Protein backbone atom coordinates (compact mmCIF):
# COMPACT_ATOMS: atom_id res chain seq x y z
CA UNK A 1 0.00 0.00 0.00
CA UNK A 2 1.22 3.45 -0.87
CA UNK A 3 0.29 6.78 0.75
CA UNK A 4 1.07 9.92 -1.19
CA UNK A 5 1.77 12.95 0.97
CA UNK A 6 1.22 16.44 -0.39
CA UNK A 7 2.26 19.57 1.49
CA UNK A 8 0.43 22.66 0.33
CA UNK A 9 3.34 24.94 1.13
CA UNK A 10 6.24 25.18 -1.31
CA UNK A 11 8.70 26.55 1.26
CA UNK A 12 11.79 24.38 1.84
CA UNK A 13 11.32 24.18 5.60
CA UNK A 14 7.55 24.06 5.43
CA UNK A 15 5.74 23.35 8.70
CA UNK A 16 3.21 21.33 6.74
CA UNK A 17 6.01 19.24 5.28
CA UNK A 18 7.04 18.50 8.88
CA UNK A 19 3.45 17.63 9.74
CA UNK A 20 3.34 15.22 6.80
CA UNK A 21 6.50 13.51 7.98
CA UNK A 22 5.12 13.32 11.53
CA UNK A 23 2.15 11.49 10.05
CA UNK A 24 4.38 9.27 7.92
CA UNK A 25 6.24 8.18 11.05
CA UNK A 26 2.96 6.73 12.34
CA UNK A 27 2.38 4.52 9.31
CA UNK A 28 2.87 0.78 9.76
CA UNK A 29 6.08 -0.54 8.18
CA UNK A 30 4.33 -2.29 5.29
CA UNK A 31 2.91 1.02 4.06
CA UNK A 32 5.07 3.00 1.68
CA UNK A 33 5.05 6.78 2.06
CA UNK A 34 5.90 8.96 -0.92
CA UNK A 35 5.99 12.74 -0.74
CA UNK A 36 5.00 14.71 -3.81
CA UNK A 37 7.23 17.76 -3.84
CA UNK A 38 6.67 19.23 -7.30
CA UNK A 39 3.57 21.40 -6.86
CA UNK A 40 5.65 24.39 -7.90
CA UNK A 41 6.28 22.98 -11.36
CA UNK A 42 2.60 22.49 -12.21
CA UNK A 43 1.46 25.27 -14.57
CA UNK A 44 -1.84 27.10 -14.06
CA UNK A 45 -4.84 25.08 -15.14
CA UNK A 46 -5.92 25.89 -18.68
CA UNK A 47 -8.59 23.87 -20.45
CA UNK A 48 -6.81 24.59 -23.74
CA UNK A 49 -3.89 22.48 -22.47
CA UNK A 50 -5.97 19.54 -21.29
CA UNK A 51 -5.31 17.38 -24.35
CA UNK A 52 -1.55 17.82 -24.09
CA UNK A 53 -0.77 18.84 -20.51
CA UNK A 54 2.72 19.70 -19.27
CA UNK A 55 4.94 16.85 -18.07
CA UNK A 56 4.54 18.11 -14.50
CA UNK A 57 0.78 17.60 -14.75
CA UNK A 58 1.25 14.08 -16.07
CA UNK A 59 3.67 13.39 -13.23
CA UNK A 60 1.15 14.71 -10.67
CA UNK A 61 -1.69 12.64 -12.09
CA UNK A 62 0.51 9.53 -12.25
CA UNK A 63 1.56 9.99 -8.62
CA UNK A 64 -2.11 10.17 -7.62
CA UNK A 65 -3.08 7.12 -9.64
CA UNK A 66 -0.22 5.06 -8.21
CA UNK A 67 -1.21 5.92 -4.63
CA UNK A 68 -3.77 3.99 -2.61
CA UNK A 69 -4.44 6.95 -0.31
CA UNK A 70 -3.67 10.66 -0.18
CA UNK A 71 -2.65 12.74 2.81
CA UNK A 72 -2.74 16.50 2.34
CA UNK A 73 -1.20 18.94 4.81
CA UNK A 74 -2.21 22.47 4.00
CA UNK A 75 -1.32 25.89 5.31
CA UNK A 76 -3.84 28.69 5.10
CA UNK A 77 -3.41 31.76 2.92
CA UNK A 78 -6.02 34.48 3.40
CA UNK A 79 -8.42 32.02 5.03
CA UNK A 80 -8.19 29.59 2.13
CA UNK A 81 -6.07 27.04 0.25
CA UNK A 82 -2.74 28.03 -1.31
CA UNK A 83 -3.27 28.74 -4.99
CA UNK A 84 -0.71 26.18 -6.13
CA UNK A 85 -2.49 23.42 -4.20
CA UNK A 86 -5.92 24.37 -5.53
CA UNK A 87 -4.44 24.46 -9.02
CA UNK A 88 -3.12 20.92 -8.61
CA UNK A 89 -6.53 19.72 -7.40
CA UNK A 90 -8.15 21.34 -10.43
CA UNK A 91 -5.81 19.54 -12.84
CA UNK A 92 -6.53 16.22 -11.16
CA UNK A 93 -10.29 16.72 -11.19
CA UNK A 94 -10.93 16.65 -14.93
CA UNK A 95 -12.49 15.11 -16.84
CA UNK A 96 -14.65 13.92 -13.95
CA UNK A 97 -15.33 10.46 -15.38
CA UNK A 98 -11.61 9.59 -15.46
CA UNK A 99 -10.18 12.07 -12.96
CA UNK A 100 -7.10 10.96 -11.01
CA UNK A 101 -8.75 12.01 -7.74
CA UNK A 102 -11.93 10.07 -8.36
CA UNK A 103 -12.74 7.61 -5.57
CA UNK A 104 -9.28 8.10 -4.06
CA UNK A 105 -9.29 7.96 -0.23
CA UNK A 106 -7.97 11.29 1.08
CA UNK A 107 -7.36 12.94 4.43
CA UNK A 108 -6.62 16.58 5.14
CA UNK A 109 -4.56 17.92 8.02
CA UNK A 110 -2.83 21.25 8.42
CA UNK A 111 -0.80 23.60 10.53
CA UNK A 112 -0.21 27.33 10.65
CA UNK A 113 1.86 29.68 12.74
CA UNK A 114 -1.30 31.39 14.01
CA UNK A 115 -3.84 30.20 16.51
CA UNK A 116 -6.33 28.60 14.11
CA UNK A 117 -4.16 25.87 12.61
CA UNK A 118 -5.34 26.32 9.01
CA UNK A 119 -8.79 25.12 9.97
CA UNK A 120 -10.59 27.01 7.19
CA UNK A 121 -8.13 25.91 4.53
CA UNK A 122 -8.66 22.32 5.60
CA UNK A 123 -12.43 22.71 5.25
CA UNK A 124 -12.04 24.28 1.81
CA UNK A 125 -9.61 21.61 0.64
CA UNK A 126 -11.96 18.86 1.79
CA UNK A 127 -14.76 20.55 -0.14
CA UNK A 128 -12.69 20.78 -3.34
CA UNK A 129 -11.42 17.21 -3.07
CA UNK A 130 -14.95 15.90 -2.55
CA UNK A 131 -16.17 17.88 -5.53
CA UNK A 132 -13.43 16.20 -7.57
CA UNK A 133 -14.82 12.81 -6.52
CA UNK A 134 -12.29 11.84 -3.86
CA UNK A 135 -13.35 9.79 -0.84
CA UNK A 136 -12.55 12.43 1.79
CA UNK A 137 -12.38 11.71 5.52
CA UNK A 138 -14.81 13.94 7.38
CA UNK A 139 -12.37 15.11 10.01
CA UNK A 140 -9.60 17.63 10.40
CA UNK A 141 -6.51 18.29 12.47
CA UNK A 142 -5.76 21.99 12.95
CA UNK A 143 -2.32 22.37 14.52
CA UNK A 144 -1.85 25.93 15.75
CA UNK A 145 1.42 27.67 16.59
CA UNK A 146 3.40 25.57 14.11
CA UNK A 147 6.82 26.90 15.16
CA UNK A 148 6.59 25.23 18.55
CA UNK A 149 4.27 22.33 17.69
CA UNK A 150 7.00 19.76 16.90
CA UNK A 151 9.65 18.23 19.11
CA UNK A 152 13.28 17.60 18.14
CA UNK A 153 12.36 14.29 16.52
CA UNK A 154 9.66 15.89 14.38
CA UNK A 155 6.73 14.44 16.31
CA UNK A 156 3.89 16.59 17.60
CA UNK A 157 4.60 17.76 21.14
CA UNK A 158 0.97 17.58 22.29
CA UNK A 159 0.11 13.98 23.08
CA UNK A 160 -3.57 14.48 22.19
CA UNK A 161 -2.62 15.85 18.78
CA UNK A 162 -0.25 12.95 18.13
CA UNK A 163 -3.06 10.52 19.05
CA UNK A 164 -5.49 12.29 16.75
CA UNK A 165 -2.98 12.25 13.92
CA UNK A 166 -2.60 8.50 14.46
CA UNK A 167 -6.37 8.07 14.32
CA UNK A 168 -6.59 9.99 11.05
CA UNK A 169 -3.80 7.92 9.52
CA UNK A 170 -5.50 4.70 10.67
CA UNK A 171 -8.85 5.83 9.29
CA UNK A 172 -7.27 6.74 5.97
CA UNK A 173 -5.62 3.34 5.69
CA UNK A 174 -8.91 1.63 6.58
CA UNK A 175 -10.61 3.50 3.74
CA UNK A 176 -7.86 2.45 1.35
CA UNK A 177 -8.03 -1.19 2.49
CA UNK A 178 -11.82 -1.26 2.13
CA UNK A 179 -11.42 -0.03 -1.41
CA UNK A 180 -8.71 -2.56 -2.23
CA UNK A 181 -10.84 -5.38 -0.80
CA UNK A 182 -13.95 -4.37 -2.78
Amino acid at each position, binding site marked *: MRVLGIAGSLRRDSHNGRLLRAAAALLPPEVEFVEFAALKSIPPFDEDDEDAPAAAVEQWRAALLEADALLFATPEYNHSIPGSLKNAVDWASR*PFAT*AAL*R*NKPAAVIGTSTGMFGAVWAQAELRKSL*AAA*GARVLDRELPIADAESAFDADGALREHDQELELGEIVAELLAEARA*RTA*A
Partner: protein
Amino acid sequence: MSVPVADTQTKLPVGTWKLDPTHSSASFAVKHMVVATFRGRFEHLDATLTVGENGAGQFTGTVDASSIRVKDENLQAHLGSPDFFDTERYPELKFSSKEIRRNGDELVVDGELTIKDQTHPVQARGTITDPHETLGGVVKIGVTLETVIDRTRFGLNWNAPLPKGGFALADDVKLTVELELAQDSE
Protein backbone atom coordinates in the same frame (compact mmCIF):
# COMPACT_ATOMS: atom_id res chain seq x y z
CA MET B 1 -48.20 -24.34 -20.92
CA SER B 2 -51.37 -23.13 -19.34
CA VAL B 3 -52.36 -19.60 -18.59
CA PRO B 4 -53.06 -19.35 -14.87
CA VAL B 5 -56.64 -18.62 -14.01
CA ALA B 6 -56.84 -15.60 -11.77
CA ASP B 7 -59.42 -13.73 -9.87
CA THR B 8 -58.44 -10.47 -11.48
CA GLN B 9 -59.97 -8.43 -8.71
CA THR B 10 -57.76 -9.34 -5.77
CA LYS B 11 -55.58 -12.36 -6.51
CA LEU B 12 -52.08 -12.31 -7.83
CA PRO B 13 -51.22 -14.75 -10.64
CA VAL B 14 -49.85 -17.94 -9.11
CA GLY B 15 -46.34 -18.95 -10.11
CA THR B 16 -42.82 -17.65 -10.31
CA TRP B 17 -42.45 -14.67 -12.63
CA LYS B 18 -38.98 -13.72 -13.79
CA LEU B 19 -37.79 -10.53 -15.38
CA ASP B 20 -37.39 -10.06 -19.10
CA PRO B 21 -34.56 -7.51 -18.73
CA THR B 22 -34.61 -6.37 -22.33
CA HIS B 23 -38.18 -5.18 -22.09
CA SER B 24 -38.04 -3.76 -18.59
CA SER B 25 -36.71 -0.53 -17.14
CA ALA B 26 -35.87 1.23 -13.89
CA SER B 27 -35.70 4.99 -13.86
CA PHE B 28 -35.65 8.00 -11.59
CA ALA B 29 -36.92 11.56 -11.81
CA VAL B 30 -35.93 14.50 -9.64
CA LYS B 31 -36.65 18.21 -9.70
CA HIS B 32 -33.58 20.04 -11.03
CA MET B 33 -32.79 23.76 -10.62
CA VAL B 34 -36.21 24.16 -9.00
CA VAL B 35 -37.94 24.42 -12.35
CA ALA B 36 -37.54 21.22 -14.36
CA THR B 37 -37.59 17.44 -14.02
CA PHE B 38 -34.38 15.54 -14.67
CA ARG B 39 -34.62 11.86 -15.56
CA GLY B 40 -32.12 9.03 -15.62
CA ARG B 41 -32.23 5.26 -15.66
CA PHE B 42 -30.44 2.09 -14.63
CA GLU B 43 -29.38 -0.27 -17.38
CA HIS B 44 -29.14 -3.52 -15.39
CA LEU B 45 -31.88 -4.77 -13.12
CA ASP B 46 -33.43 -8.00 -11.96
CA ALA B 47 -36.78 -8.82 -10.37
CA THR B 48 -38.86 -11.83 -9.41
CA LEU B 49 -42.47 -12.11 -8.34
CA THR B 50 -43.36 -15.35 -6.60
CA VAL B 51 -46.99 -16.12 -5.84
CA GLY B 52 -47.98 -19.24 -3.93
CA GLU B 53 -51.14 -21.30 -4.36
CA ASN B 54 -52.55 -19.48 -1.35
CA GLY B 55 -52.20 -16.21 -3.24
CA ALA B 56 -49.41 -14.79 -1.06
CA GLY B 57 -46.88 -12.89 -3.11
CA GLN B 58 -43.24 -11.99 -2.65
CA PHE B 59 -41.56 -9.45 -4.89
CA THR B 60 -37.82 -8.83 -4.92
CA GLY B 61 -35.78 -6.59 -7.14
CA THR B 62 -32.18 -5.50 -7.53
CA VAL B 63 -30.56 -2.77 -9.56
CA ASP B 64 -26.88 -2.57 -10.50
CA ALA B 65 -25.98 0.88 -9.18
CA SER B 66 -23.04 1.28 -11.54
CA SER B 67 -25.37 0.84 -14.51
CA ILE B 68 -26.82 4.30 -13.95
CA ARG B 69 -27.19 6.12 -17.26
CA VAL B 70 -27.57 9.81 -18.02
CA LYS B 71 -26.66 11.78 -21.10
CA ASP B 72 -23.35 13.21 -19.89
CA GLU B 73 -20.51 10.84 -18.91
CA ASN B 74 -19.08 13.25 -16.34
CA LEU B 75 -22.48 13.67 -14.69
CA GLN B 76 -22.82 9.89 -14.81
CA ALA B 77 -19.49 9.58 -12.99
CA HIS B 78 -20.62 12.14 -10.41
CA LEU B 79 -23.78 10.13 -9.76
CA GLY B 80 -21.60 7.08 -9.16
CA SER B 81 -19.27 8.95 -6.78
CA PRO B 82 -19.50 9.14 -2.97
CA ASP B 83 -21.62 12.31 -3.37
CA PHE B 84 -24.43 10.09 -4.66
CA PHE B 85 -24.62 6.30 -5.06
CA ASP B 86 -20.95 5.54 -4.25
CA THR B 87 -21.17 2.57 -6.60
CA GLU B 88 -17.67 1.35 -5.84
CA ARG B 89 -18.68 0.65 -2.26
CA TYR B 90 -22.41 0.02 -2.68
CA PRO B 91 -22.86 -1.82 -5.98
CA GLU B 92 -26.52 -2.74 -5.60
CA LEU B 93 -29.91 -1.22 -4.81
CA LYS B 94 -32.39 -3.73 -3.37
CA PHE B 95 -36.10 -3.97 -2.79
CA SER B 96 -37.97 -6.70 -0.96
CA SER B 97 -41.72 -6.75 -0.44
CA LYS B 98 -43.47 -7.29 2.87
CA GLU B 99 -47.03 -7.20 1.62
CA ILE B 100 -48.63 -7.05 -1.82
CA ARG B 101 -52.25 -6.04 -2.35
CA ARG B 102 -54.16 -6.09 -5.61
CA ASN B 103 -57.42 -4.44 -6.49
CA GLY B 104 -58.24 -4.98 -10.14
CA ASP B 105 -55.38 -3.55 -12.16
CA GLU B 106 -54.04 -1.64 -9.20
CA LEU B 107 -51.14 -2.89 -7.15
CA VAL B 108 -49.85 -1.67 -3.79
CA VAL B 109 -46.57 -3.08 -2.52
CA ASP B 110 -45.19 -2.39 0.94
CA GLY B 111 -41.57 -3.29 1.30
CA GLU B 112 -38.07 -2.28 2.20
CA LEU B 113 -35.71 -0.39 -0.07
CA THR B 114 -31.96 -0.53 0.48
CA ILE B 115 -29.62 2.05 -1.01
CA LYS B 116 -26.04 2.53 0.23
CA ASP B 117 -26.69 -0.08 2.93
CA GLN B 118 -29.48 2.05 4.39
CA THR B 119 -32.83 0.31 4.51
CA HIS B 120 -36.16 2.10 4.88
CA PRO B 121 -39.78 1.06 4.41
CA VAL B 122 -41.42 2.32 1.24
CA GLN B 123 -44.82 1.89 -0.35
CA ALA B 124 -44.89 1.50 -4.12
CA ARG B 125 -48.07 1.81 -6.16
CA GLY B 126 -48.72 0.76 -9.71
CA THR B 127 -50.47 -1.69 -11.94
CA ILE B 128 -50.49 -5.37 -12.78
CA THR B 129 -51.89 -7.13 -15.81
CA ASP B 130 -53.44 -10.55 -16.05
CA PRO B 131 -51.22 -13.28 -17.55
CA HIS B 132 -51.13 -13.35 -21.32
CA GLU B 133 -49.69 -16.04 -23.58
CA THR B 134 -47.12 -14.49 -25.93
CA LEU B 135 -44.78 -15.71 -28.65
CA GLY B 136 -43.43 -19.21 -28.22
CA GLY B 137 -46.06 -19.98 -25.63
CA VAL B 138 -44.35 -17.83 -23.02
CA VAL B 139 -46.84 -16.50 -20.49
CA LYS B 140 -46.15 -12.98 -19.32
CA ILE B 141 -47.46 -10.34 -16.97
CA GLY B 142 -46.70 -6.64 -16.80
CA VAL B 143 -46.01 -4.79 -13.56
CA THR B 144 -45.39 -1.09 -13.07
CA LEU B 145 -44.49 0.40 -9.72
CA GLU B 146 -43.71 3.89 -8.58
CA THR B 147 -42.65 5.42 -5.29
CA VAL B 148 -41.22 8.68 -4.05
CA ILE B 149 -38.30 8.61 -1.62
CA ASP B 150 -36.38 11.27 0.26
CA ARG B 151 -32.89 10.61 -1.11
CA THR B 152 -31.20 12.15 1.94
CA ARG B 153 -32.54 9.30 4.11
CA PHE B 154 -30.42 6.95 1.99
CA GLY B 155 -27.22 8.98 2.20
CA LEU B 156 -27.56 10.70 -1.17
CA ASN B 157 -26.97 14.13 0.26
CA TRP B 158 -25.28 16.19 -2.43
CA ASN B 159 -26.80 19.56 -3.18
CA ALA B 160 -25.85 23.10 -4.12
CA PRO B 161 -27.59 26.30 -3.08
CA LEU B 162 -28.77 28.58 -5.86
CA PRO B 163 -27.91 32.28 -5.81
CA LYS B 164 -31.53 33.43 -5.60
CA GLY B 165 -32.65 30.71 -3.19
CA GLY B 166 -33.55 27.07 -3.46
CA PHE B 167 -31.27 24.16 -4.27
CA ALA B 168 -29.99 22.50 -7.42
CA LEU B 169 -31.69 19.21 -6.59
CA ALA B 170 -34.86 18.33 -4.74
CA ASP B 171 -34.70 15.77 -1.94
CA ASP B 172 -37.72 13.87 -3.25
CA VAL B 173 -36.95 11.43 -6.07
CA LYS B 174 -39.54 9.43 -7.97
CA LEU B 175 -38.47 5.86 -8.70
CA THR B 176 -40.28 3.95 -11.42
CA VAL B 177 -39.99 0.38 -12.66
CA GLU B 178 -41.80 -0.98 -15.69
CA LEU B 179 -41.41 -4.72 -15.74
CA GLU B 180 -42.19 -7.50 -18.18
CA LEU B 181 -42.19 -10.77 -16.26
CA ALA B 182 -42.29 -14.23 -17.77
CA GLN B 183 -43.70 -17.30 -16.07
CA ASP B 184 -40.85 -19.56 -15.00
CA SER B 185 -41.26 -22.80 -16.93
CA GLU B 186 -38.94 -24.84 -14.66
